[in-house]
C-alpha cells in the first residue's frame, strides 16, 4: 500500500510540476486575458512569426489550432464547444457551411486592405460579393512531369496523357471532381457539366486512359514523383510546388483545355466570439507586406496583387504558379452540383476506378 501511495503521489507531483511549466511557458500572455482570438487553420499553413507580430501590434492573444480536412473542421464548428473566430475552408466547403448557416457575414468596412486582392479572385460563384469569405491562397489542378523520364517530350494538354508512350506511367490524385473534371476538360466540356450524356462520354474517355495509369492515390504522389517512380502526375499546384522544391527536373503545366481553380478562404464561423479581433486579423493578413511574407513561407500562390511587388521576381513571374489573366480565364471554380449530381459524379468515378485494363 505504501509503495502504491508513494508511486501515485509521485505521478501527481510530476503532473503538477509539468502544469506549472506549461503555465510558465504561457506566462507572458496572461496580461491580455479576455481579448483572445481563436484561429482554426490547416497544419503549417501560416508563418508562425506573423502570429507573434499580430499579437504585438494589436494586443490580442492568439490561440492557434490546426485541422487536416475540411470535413473534420466542419464537424468541430457544427458541434460548437470551441469559440473559433477564424477558419480557413476550401471553396466547396464554404458552400456547404453557408447552407448550414455556419458562417457570419463579413463587415467589409472593417477590411480596408481588401482592395489589394486581385479582382480576378473576387466575387466568385461559391461566395457572391465575398459576403462570407476572403481568399487566402489559391491554385490550380495540373500536370507535373519528370523531364528526364519524358525524354524531352513536353506535355501541354490533358489529351497528351492519352499518348500510348505513357503506358503505366501516370499517377492520379484520388478525387472524384478532379478526375472527372479532367475527363470533361479533355473533351472541352465544363468541369461543372450537368449533362449526363457528356459525363458518360467523359467516363468512357477516362476508361481509355486506364492502361496508362499506374496508381490513383493521395499524398503519396509526392514521394513517388520525387523518387522517379512515375513520369507524370495529376496534382494540385500546391503539391506540385512542394515536389519541385525538392527536385529540379520536374515541370508543372496547367493544361490548355482548361482546369480547376481552387481557393482556401478566410471566414468567420458562427462560433466566433471576438468579431473585432477576427476582422483585425483578416485585415492584417491582407496587408501586402504580411501577405508576401506568408506566401514565401507557405509556398502557395497568394491572391494579393499588391503583395506580389514585395516578393522575389522569379517567383512572381513564374507563369506555372502565377498564371496570367489570359490563362486563368478558361479555368473554372467548382460549383456546387447538388447532392444528386455529385452522387452521379462519384458513381461514375467509382466505375472508372474499377474499370479493367
Amino acid at each position: 500500500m505504501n509503495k502504491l501511495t508513494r508511486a501515485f503521489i509521485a505521478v501527481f507531483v510530476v503532473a503538477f510540476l509539468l502544469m506549472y511549466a506549461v503555465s510558465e511557458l504561457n506566462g507572458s500572455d496572461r496580461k491580455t486575458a479576455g481579448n483572445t482570438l481563436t484561429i482554426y487553420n490547416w497544419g503549417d499553413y501560416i508563418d508562425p512569426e506573423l502570429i507573434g507580430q499580430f499579437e504585438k501590434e494589436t494586443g490580442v492573444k492568439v490561440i492557434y489550432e490546426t485541422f487536416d480536412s475540411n470535413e473534420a473542421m466542419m464537424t468541430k464548428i457544427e458541434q460548437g464547444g470551441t469559440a473559433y473566430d477564424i477558419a480557413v475552408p476550401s471553396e466547396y466547403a464554404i458552400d456547404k457551411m453557408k447552407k448550414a448557416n455556419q458562417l457570419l457575414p463579413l463587415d467589409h468596412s472593417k477590411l480596408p486592405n481588401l482592395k489589394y486582392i486581385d479582382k480576378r479572385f473576387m466575387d466568385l460563384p461559391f461566395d457572391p460579393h465575398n459576403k462570407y469569405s476572403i481568399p487566402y491562397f489559391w491554385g490550380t489542378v495540373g500536370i507535373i512531369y519528370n523531364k528526364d523520364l519524358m525524354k524531352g517530350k513536353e506535355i501541354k494538354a490533358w489529351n497528351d496523357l492519352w499518348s500510348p508512350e505513357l503506358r503505366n506511367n501516370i499517377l492520379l490524385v484520388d478525387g472524384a471532381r478532379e478526375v472527372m473534371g479532367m475527363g470533361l476538360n479533355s473533351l472541352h466540356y465544363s468541369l461543372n457539366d450537368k449533362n449526363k450524356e457528356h459525363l458518360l462520354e467523359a467516363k468512357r474517355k477516362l476508361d481509355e486512359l486506364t492502361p496508362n495509369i499506374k496508381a490513383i492515390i493521395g499524398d503519396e504522389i509526392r514521394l513517388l514523383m520525387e523518387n522517379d517512380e512515375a513520369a507524370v502526375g495529376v496534382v494540385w499546384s500546391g503539391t506540385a510546388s512542394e515536389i519541385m522544391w525538392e527536385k529540379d527536373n520536374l515541370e508543372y503545366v496547367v493544361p490548355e483545355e482548361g482546369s480547376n481553380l481552387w481557393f482556401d478562404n478566410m471566414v468567420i464561423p458562427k462560433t466566433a466570439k471576438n468579431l473585432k479581433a477576427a476582422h483585425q486579423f483578416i485585415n492584417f493578413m491582407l496587408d501586402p507586406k504580411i501577405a508576401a511574407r506568408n506566401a514565401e513561407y507557405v509556398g502557395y500562390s497568394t491572391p494579393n496583387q499588391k503583395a506580389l511587388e514585395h516578393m522575389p521576381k522569379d517567383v512572381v513571374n513564374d507563369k506555372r504558379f502565377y498564371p496570367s489573366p489570359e490563362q486563368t480565364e478558361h479555368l473554372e471554380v467548382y460549383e456546387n452540383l447538388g447532392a444528386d449530381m455529385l452522387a452521379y459524379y462519384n458513381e461514375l468515378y467509382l466505375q472508372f476506378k474499377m474499370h479493367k485494363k
Partner: protein
Amino acid sequence: MKKKSIWPKVYLAFIFIVLYAPIFYLMFYSFNSGGTMNNFEGFTLDWYKELFGDKRLLIIVLNTIIVALLSAAIATMIGVIGALSIVYMRKKTTKQALLSLNNVLIVSPDVIIGASFLILFTMAGIKLGFTSVLLSHIAFSIPIVVIMVLPKLEEMSMSLIDAARDLGASPWDVLSKVILPYISPGIFAGFFMALTYSLDDFAVTFFVTGNGFSTLSVEIYSLARRGISLNINALSTLLFLFTIILVAGYYFIMQRNSRAAEAGVRK
C-alpha cells in the same frame, strides 16, 4: 544434452528487426541536414534546435504528458475499485454482464466513443479543452485497467483474506495490507497500459480537443496536408528514448522488488 537449433534465434532476431526498423529509420533521418526522408545529406542537430525553439509544440508535448499521467493515475484508481467490486460480486450473472459491458467499451471503435463524448460535452456545456480531454481519457482508460487488474485478483486465494480476518484485521486492513500489495503488479501494469493508450490516442482526442488545447497525435496528424517536417522526427526520437528510459526504470524497480522479496523469504 541436445544442442539447440539456431533457427529460433534467427527468427526472433528477424521479427525484432522488422518491428524496430521503421523507428530507427525515422530516428536516423532526424539528423539529416537535407530536410527530407529521401537521401541522407549530412549530419545536423538543427531539427532538435528548431524543436526546442518551437514554444507551441513544446506546450503541446507537455500537455500530452500531463493528460497521460493524470488520466492514467485517476483511471487506475477508479479501475481498481471497479475490478474489486466485479470480483467480489455475489451473483454470477451480474458479474458476467458487468464484465461484458466492460469489454464492449474496449472493443468499440474510438471514433464512436469520441463522437459521443463530443456530443455529451457540448450538451453538458463543458468547454472543450483540457478538462474534456482529461475526462474522456480517464473514461476510455478505466476498462483497460479493470482488464489488467482482474486476473491478479482472481488468482488470489480467498483463504488469504479469511486468514487476515481471523487474525483480527479490519476490512480496511485487509484491503490495504493484503489485497492491494498482492495485486500491485497488476495495478502498475494497468497504469502503464493506460499511460500508453492516452499518449497515442488520436481518434477520441481529436473530437474533444478545442480552444487551443491540443495533443501531439492530433497536431502531427494535421500536418499531413503540408508534409511532415523533420523536427517531428526529432520529437519522435526524443519520445522514443523517453519511453525506453521509462521501461528500463520499471524493469529495474521490479527486479529490485523481487530480489527483496526473495531475501525476505530466505530469512
